[in-house]
């Protein structure tokens, strides 16, 4: 009896020691809302589509910029319904909050927090479609809360409150990347195809013109 009791206690202790090690050694999943996301992972969280798509469209954007809203609602959304689900386009969002817009950096912070919580697409769509609402009042949190579920919003709030430094660093990295490419206005759109990066004319792009260009590039494969 004593021996079996010792055996049980020993196995429990061993299990207690080994189990956390086994869990941490297992495949790491990019769980949204995890403590800290590496740079690459954060970029992925702010992107839509498959990384293996033949065309990558990278957009430096400011949530408070009217032309960015037009581009997002009229062009990017259509891409998200057509080329992105088909695996032909990978859409990468880059934050480029302009100093002329009073709430754009704060909006970028909330959107990044939403990305870390795994609800970036909804947050981005809400920020652009309700730009007039929060742009005049600055009540970004309220606008997001109206679109996200209470559980998701709670996650976003927690991340925004606890990972401020990481979020700011991510925005600063996007800004630095944009400045290194000479971005001075938004939206600034880059198309990457077969290793060649081509900037599109600034001021937003009509969907049917972008569609024609994408189709042309896809024919080059």
């Amino acid at each position, binding site marked *: 009896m004593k021996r079996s009791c010792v055996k049980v206690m020993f196995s429990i202790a061993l299990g207690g020691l080994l189990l956390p090690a086994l869990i941490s050694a297992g495949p790491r999943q990019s769980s949204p809302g995890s403590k800290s996301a590496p740079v690459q992972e954060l970029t992925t969280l702010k992107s839509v589509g498959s990384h293996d798509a033949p065309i990558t469209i990278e957009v430096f954007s400011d949530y408070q910029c009217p*032309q960015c809203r037009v581009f997002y609602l009229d062009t990017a959304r259509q891409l998200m319904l057509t080329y992105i689900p088909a695996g032909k386009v990978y859409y990468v969002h880059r934050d480029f909050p302009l100093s002329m817009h009073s709430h754009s950096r704060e909006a970028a912070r909330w959107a990044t927090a939403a990305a870390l919580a795994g609800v970036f697409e909804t947050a981005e769509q809400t920020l652009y479609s309700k730009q007039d609402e929060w742009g005049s009042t600055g009540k970004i949190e309220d606008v997001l809360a109206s679109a996200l579920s209470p559980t998701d919003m709670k996650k976003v709030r927690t991340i925004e409150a606890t990972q401020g430094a990481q979020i700011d660093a991510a925005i600063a990295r996007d800004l630095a990347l944009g400045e290194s490419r000479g971005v001075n206005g938004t939206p600034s759109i880059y198309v990457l195809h077969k290793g060649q990066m081509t900037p599109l004319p*600034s*001021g*937003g*792009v009509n969907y049917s013109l*972008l569609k024609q260009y994408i189709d042309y590039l896809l024919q080059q494969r």
Partner: protein
Amino acid sequence: MSQTSSIAVERPRTRSKVGFLLIAARILLGLIFAYAAYAKLHFNGAWHLRDYYFFFAMSIDSYRMLPLVIVQWMARILPWLELGLGALLVIGVGVRWAGLVVIALLAVFMIALAHAALGGLEIHCGCFGTGSVKPGRELMLDGVLLALALAVTVGGFLSHRAGKSQA
């Protein structure tokens, strides 16, 4: 007597000075037009002879003035038209007619730029490819080019008439 001869010498000199300035203006205008065409066909470190019109169409469309069909048509033709006009002006063939087309083009560009500037559109004009300056500054440049084009065209018509009357 001596006074009359000095006037007679002065006139051809002034005329030759004006003629020289007009030739310089014509060549300058031609080179600027040729450069505008080049910038639309060669950008981002490479020639874009097969896909230039996508980018130029996007630039024209950002003015939000024309239907898409016309935008695409203009995007395909305009760089080659600019190149042709530039070449004619530089070599001095059909100067009067090339000048008239240049004046018409510049007037259209200026209307579009004024529309963009007044509408507060934050766009690059596309006049010199993707690396163009903002509409307000481009409008001033086009104003200077229009003055040059007017001088070259009027000069071309006047010298043509003078040549006819001499004959």
